């Protein structure tokens, strides 16, 4: 049985990753999950300098999902390289995808340049879709021209293949996917969270200090499947599919829709072993369906 998938020349032992921001750099979850068994560890967004993030409350539960407005709190690229990348050295079987965030093109480039010489970094995921920071982030991800330009710029600096992470908070995500492809992206990942809001009816005020937050969890999964399907039929670069994946069925569904690999996000919060549970379920499915190569199911539902 082959579970290996290849994206932009990088080979992953299986298509299961975790979604940026839900898993730190793996440290906290290494108590529950052998990181060496994952296709990749996708790190939380890293900026050029430490970011404090948003005020609390940053978390709200909604039906079959949650809202978050963390605001990309992170220690900055220096600490990340010295501590997190060093920690990840011991898990050679898993690829390392570093999620990169910034307020401006210059800030993205600074991080990309700093990571250029880091051999442990296999790919970069460029976050142009965070709904919780006011400048940068999603501002780059909602205008096709901006998507193409930032992709081009990052691609010109990056020493590792780049994945552009797209926002679902757009009228037509295919347009953004095509813009990323035109800019030279090696792959795209989608979906980031959907902007939502929750109001406390007793207090008659917002639950989140940031008022709005990114919605994730099983409730968004059908939207993610639809968008992955649309993009898979619009571009020729590989897609990493994510959005509410919590079971092996969700992961298989995403691959049938056209994703080459999948990321598990919110599910980690309520099932710390979700990634490996999904991998094991996917393998059982392959046996039962007599699928020798996982690549054979990618995008076969047309």
């Amino acid at each position, binding site marked *: 049985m082959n579970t290996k998938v290849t994206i932009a020349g990088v080979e992953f032992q299986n298509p299961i990753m975790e979604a940026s*921001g*839900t*898993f*730190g750099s793996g*440290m*906290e*979850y290494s*108590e*529950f999950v052998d990181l060496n068994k994952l296709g990749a560890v996708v790190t*939380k967004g890293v900026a050029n300098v*430490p*970011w*404090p*993030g948003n005020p*609390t*409350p*940053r*978390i*709200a*539960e909604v*039906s*079959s*999902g*949650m809202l*978050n407005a*963390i605001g990309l*709190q*992170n*220690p*900055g690229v220096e*600490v990340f390289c010295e501590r997190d990348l060093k920690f990840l050295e011991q898990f050679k079987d898993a690829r390392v995808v570093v999620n990169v965030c910034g307020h401006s093109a210059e800030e993205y480039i600074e991080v990309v340049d700093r990571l250029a010489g880091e051999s442990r970094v296999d790919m970069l995921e460029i976050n142009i879709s965070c709904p919780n920071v006011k400048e940068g982030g999603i501002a780059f991800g909602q205008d096709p021209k901006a998507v193409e330009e930032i992709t081009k710029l990052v691609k010109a600096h990056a020493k590792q293949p780049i994945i552009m992470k797209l926002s679902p908070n757009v009228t037509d995500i295919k347009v953004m996917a095509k813009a990323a492809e035109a800019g030279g992206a090696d792959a795209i990942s989608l979906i980031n969270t959907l902007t939502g809001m929750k109001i406390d009816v007793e207090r008659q005020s917002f639950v989140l200090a940031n008022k709005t937050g990114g919605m994730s*969890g*099983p409730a968004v999964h059908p939207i993610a499947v639809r968008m992955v399907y649309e993009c898979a039929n619009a571009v020729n670069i590989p897609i990493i599919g994510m959005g509410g994946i919590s079971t092996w069925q969700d992961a298989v569904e995403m691959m049938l829709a056209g994703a080459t690999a999948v990321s598990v996000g*919110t599910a*980690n*919060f*309520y099932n*710390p072993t979700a990634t490996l549970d999904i991998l094991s379920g996917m393998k059982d499915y392959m046996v039962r369906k007599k699928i020798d190569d996982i690549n054979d199911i990618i995008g076969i539902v047309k």
Partner: protein
Amino acid sequence: MKVKEKAQVLEQMKLADGVYSLKLKTTAAEYAIPGQFISIYSNNGSKLLPRPISICEIDKNAGTLRVVYRVVGEGTAEFSQLTAGDEVEVMGPLGNGFPLEGEKTVVVGGGIGVPPMLELAKQLSGSVTAVMGYRNDDMFLTEEFTDVAAELIIATDDGSVGVHGTVVDAMKENDLDADVIYACGPKPMLRGVAEYAAERGIKCYVSMEERMACGVGACLGCVCQSTEKDDHSHVNNKRVCKDGPVFLSTEVVL
């Protein structure tokens, strides 16, 4: 060591209006210390996130944990319906817990901050004074504190029992002295206790609360402002679930 498993419900009791006590058989008991918490998961699949609830009592021999919690929403309302023999998913123990220090200590609890102080009072050596604050005479755990503490001082908001006012009013009225003060309760209360301790040069630990998602320090959802740079992000945001919930009062902005 953290475990995630189905715990067996041994007992459910209503202690006061909206306040319940749940005794669980779980291997998490083996590793738990006072001031830590467990995440309890809803059996309703549409409620994804666990509810972080402080540990009230630990019995390592019996392998049981007792949690005392207030019903504040649908999740905790569901927990209050659990009965002996039911199973419920838990993860824990989580967080750092209270360090056991001092020969003369004061443990202070306000409202639903009362429960975690019980196991602490049991495990502290030396003389423990318990100061517990309630809204009114609908109190809980007072018998237990009477058993384990050298002295129990009660404060109620409406004055129906003990000191009329807050736990800080009660501490001032009794001019309490200590090597260490431990506190859990709403933020304004923690601020008052921390000020009391600072004025008298007493070391003070506070247990903080924040909305959480992962419970293990990965998502950065539950941070509180810290006076020094935190180890994780170096931005003066400590993680309540992992770096806390217990902090030195001088370590956090209250």
